[in-house]
C-alpha cells in the first residue's frame, strides 16, 4: 500500500513553475520602486529595504514624454479593436452567408496573405505610407491594424457555425440584410467578438517592429517603441527602465487579472476552430 501524501505531488511541480513565471514580474514592479544604489548591489534584494523610492518614475516622467506614449498606444489599440470588431465581423458575415460575385476569389486572396511575414511587407508598406504622407504620424501605427485576415477568418468560421434558421426567419419577416446582421446575428457573436478584441488588443498594444519602422518622432512613439528607444540610450538606468516596463505592461496585466476566466476562455476559443 502506498501512503497518500497529505497534498498532491503535482504541487511540487506547479509551485516552482508558477514562481518562475511570476517572480520576474514581481521583481520588475518592486525594482521600479528602488533607488539606484539599492538596485546595483549583489546579491540582489527582491524587497525594497529603504522604503519606496519614486526616482524611477520621476526620472522617466521628466526625461521622456511617457504619458504621451501611453496615450498614443491607448489610441492605436482602441482604434485597432473598434475597427477590427466592425470590419472583420461585417466581412466575416459576408463571406459566410452572402453570395456575391468574386466571393471565392476574395476569400482565397485573404487566406493567402496569412503566411506572408511582416518583414516582407514592411519595406513596401513604409514606401507606400511615405508617399501617402502618413509616415511619422499615428495613422502609420494604426492603419495596418484596421482589419486582418485572422480576424475575417475567425468571424467567418464562427458565423458558419451558427444555425441559419434564425436569420431566415428574420429575412422572411422583412428585415434587410444589415438589420438581420445587427439585431439577430451580432448578439449571438459575442464570444467570437471577445476573442477578436482580446487578440487585437494584445497584438496592437505589444507591437514593436512596425511602429519602430514607421515612426521616428518621439512624440508619436507608441509605448513599446518609446520604451525600446529609451533603453537604447539609458541601458543602466534600471529604476527608470523598470518603471517604464510597469507602465507598458501593467494595464494589460491588470485587465487580464480582472477578467482572467473570460480571457483564457477567449484564447482557447481561437486556436482550435482555426
Amino acid at each position: 500500500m502506498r501512503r497518500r501524501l497529505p497534498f498532491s505531488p503535482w504541487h511540487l511541480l506547479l509551485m516552482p513553475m508558477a514562481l518562475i513565471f511570476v517572480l520576474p514580474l514581481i521583481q520588475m514592479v518592486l525594482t521600479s520602486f528602488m533607488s539606484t544604489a539599492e538596485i546595483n548591489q549583489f546579491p540582489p534584494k527582491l524587497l525594497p529595504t529603504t522604503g519606496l523610492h519614486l526616482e524611477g518614475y520621476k526620472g522617466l516622467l521628466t526625461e521622456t514624454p511617457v504619458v504621451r506614449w501611453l496615450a498614443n498606444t491607448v489610441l492605436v489599440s482602441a482604434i485597432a479593436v473598434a475597427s477590427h470588431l466592425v470590419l472583420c465581423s461585417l466581412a466575416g458575415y459576408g463571406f459566410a452567408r452572402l453570395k456575391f460575385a468574386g466571393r471565392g476569389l476574395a476569400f482565397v486572396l485573404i487566406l493567402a496573405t496569412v503566411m506572408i511575414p511582416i518583414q516582407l511587407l514592411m519595406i513596401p508598406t513604409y514606401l507606400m505610407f511615405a508617399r501617402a504622407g502618413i509616415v511619422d504620424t499615428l495613422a502609420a501605427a494604426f492603419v495596418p491594424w484596421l482589419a486582418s485576415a485572422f480576424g475575417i477568418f475567425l468571424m467567418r468560421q464562427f458565423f458558419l457555425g451558427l444555425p441559419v434558421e434564425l436569420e431566415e426567419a428574420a429575412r422572411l419577416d422583412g428585415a434587410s440584410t444589415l438589420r438581420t446582421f445587427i439585431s439577430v446575428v451580432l448578439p449571438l457573436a459575442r464570444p467570437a467578438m471577445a476573442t477578436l478584441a482580446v487578440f487585437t488588443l494584445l497584438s496592437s498594444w505589444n507591437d514593436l517592429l512596425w511602429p519602430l519602422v514607421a515612426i521616428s518622432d518621439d512624440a508619436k512613439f507608441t509605448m513599446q517603441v518609446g520604451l525600446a528607444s529609451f533603453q537604447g540610450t539609458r541601458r543602466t538606468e534600471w529604476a527608470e527602465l523598470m518603471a517604464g516596463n510597469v507602465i507598458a505592461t501593467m494595464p494589460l496585466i491588470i485587465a487580464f487579472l480582472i477578467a482572467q476566466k473570460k480571457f483564457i476562455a477567449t484564447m482557447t476559443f481561437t486556436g482550435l476552430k482555426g
Partner: protein
Amino acid sequence: MALTFAATPRSAAPAGHRRRDPRRRALSRHLTGWAFAGPATLIVVGLSLFPAVWAFFISRAKWNGIAPATMVGWQNYERLAQDPDMAAAAQHTLLLTALFVPASIVVGMLVAVALNQKIRLIGFYRTCIFVPYVASAAATGILAGFVFNPQFGAANEILRRVGIPAQQFLESPNQAMYIICVIALWGEIGFTAVIYLAALQDIPKELVEAARTDGASPWRIFWHVTLPELRPVTVFTAIWQTITALQLFDLIYTTTRGGPLNSTQTVVYYIYELAFQTQRLGYGAAAAYLLFAVTLLLSLLVIWYGRRRGTEAF
C-alpha cells in the same frame, strides 16, 4: 448553444414577396455582399498582397529608397547565397527554431497536464503561468536584461546559491542565443499551455476510463490515449511556434540587438538592419523573400507530416 427555433415556424412567412426584376435583384445582392466584405478585404489585400508583389520588384533592384533604383535581376538573390552574414543569421535562426519549437511543445504539454489536475490552488497556478504571455516582448526583453545581468542579476544569484560560478548570459556569444530561447519560452508557454489545456479537457472521459478499466498505467494512458488525441493541437502549435521563432524580433531588439559579436543576429533582425539601418532596400527585400519561402516550406512540411500521420489539422 441554447436556442429555440420553435417560435419561428417556417410556414408563417409573410405574404407578398416583392417581385422585382431578377437582374436588379442580383445586382443588389452583389452590392450588399461587397458592402459587407469590401472594406476589410480592401485593407487586408491592399496592405499585404499588393506590398508583397511590390516587394518582389524591389528585391530585383539596387535601391536606397532615394536615388533612382537600378534593376539588377536576380543579382540580390545570388549575393544572398554567398553572403556570410546571411548564412550566419540563417544558422542562428535555425538554432533558435530547433530549440524553441520542440521545447514549447513539450513544456506546454507538460504544464497543461499539470494544470489539468483537480487540486487546490489550480486557478492560481493557471494565472501565474499565463501572465507573462500578456506582457509585451519588448518589456520582457528589458526585464530579462535585468534578471540576467552578469553583475547583479537574480540569475547569477541563484547560480551562486547552488555553487555554480557567475555567467555572462546575454553578454556571452556562446550563451546569448540559448538565453533568448529561454526568455521566449517564458513568454510563450502560457499560450501553448492554454491551448493544450483546452484540448485535454475536450478528450472524451470514456476513452480514459476504458483504458483505466483495462488496467493501463497512467503513463500508458497518456502515451496511447491522450497523446494521439492531442495530435491536431500539436500540428497547430508546431506551425504557430515555428512562425513565432522564425519571426522573433522584439525580444532580440530589447536584449542584445543582434550581439554580442552578431551571435543573436537572426534573419529578421538582419532584414531590419539591411532595410532600415543601412538602407539597402533591394537586398533586404530579397532576404525577406527568402524568409517567406522558408516559412512556407516549413509550414507545408508540418502540415504534410500531420496529414501523413492521419491528422487533419488544416
